[in-house]
């Protein structure tokens, strides 16, 4: 079996993988929604989202709704491409074991 390092290290982190997968299913999502779905802490979630943003996989929009700050995250085309490639890499690594 090939070695794990062939997988994209930015996506390979479990929380980052979960975040990118969640964002793949919605148009955009608020910080609080992502926190509820992942069960993560504010600090850890913020740090992992920043890494995804720095990699260009997600885009962030900050705005005020009824005077309350709102942070919206959406997956970029690069993020979608990276997730697709990651899934393909996983499947090729698993090979015949994927149906086992």
């Amino acid at each position, binding site marked *: 079996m090939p070695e794990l390092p062939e997988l994209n290290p930015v996506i390979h982190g*479990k929380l980052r993988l*979960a975040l990118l997968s969640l964002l793949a*299913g*919605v148009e*955009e*999502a608020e910080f609080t*929604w992502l926190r509820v779905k992942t069960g993560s802490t504010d600090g850890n979630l913020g740090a992992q989202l920043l890494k995804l943003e720095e990699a260009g996989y997600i885009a962030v929009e900050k705005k005020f709704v009824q005077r309350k700050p709102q942070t919206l995250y959406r997956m970029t085309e690069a993020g979608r491409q990276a997730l697709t490639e990651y899934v393909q890499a*996983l499947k090729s690594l*698993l090979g015949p*074991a994927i149906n086992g």
Partner: protein
Amino acid sequence: MTENLNEMEMELKDRLSLIENMIAEGRRGTESWGWVFLLWGVAYYVAILWSSTSFLGPIWGRQYLAWPVTMSLSCVLTIVIGARKQGKRPSTTISRAIAAMWMAMGISMFILLLSLGISGRVEQQVFIAIIAAMLGTTNAASSFILRWKVQFACAVVWWAAAVISLFSNVTQSSLVFLLAIFLCQIVFGVYGMVAEARSRRQGAIHA
């Protein structure tokens, strides 16, 4: 060595599973299905009430119209409300798959029940068992796609109603059907709508 390979394999499978679960989680929380279940639950009750009660009047007195009229009206309402709710949002593979299953089930049910009605080979217990089994199948398929245990529970209730109906008399079978509609359409529909509203408040927007 073999143990390490197995561990790695498990870890990779775990990643794939995580991706699938999270994508399904996002979809399930943001797609809007609850109102459809509620609408059809109410429609079934109206059809049953209309077909089994002797209302006075030129329209309500025609009990044979109850199912065709109610079901047709529900179809139109589902299409109109669904189109308005969908708006300009892009459809997704999952939403198309779910909609396709329900449409196929609706067409099958319409053809089968119409033929049974016209041919006169219809017995109430069998009629209920067919509807319940078809609803059980579609709910189960949808629950597998969405990985939604609550909807699978609805499928189990429908399957149970189908089996019980075939082993009971007309009254018992009707009661079982009414109970299944209440649980799997009305209660599940309201539950779905509440979950969707909660998800929207938390900030996820439909893809």
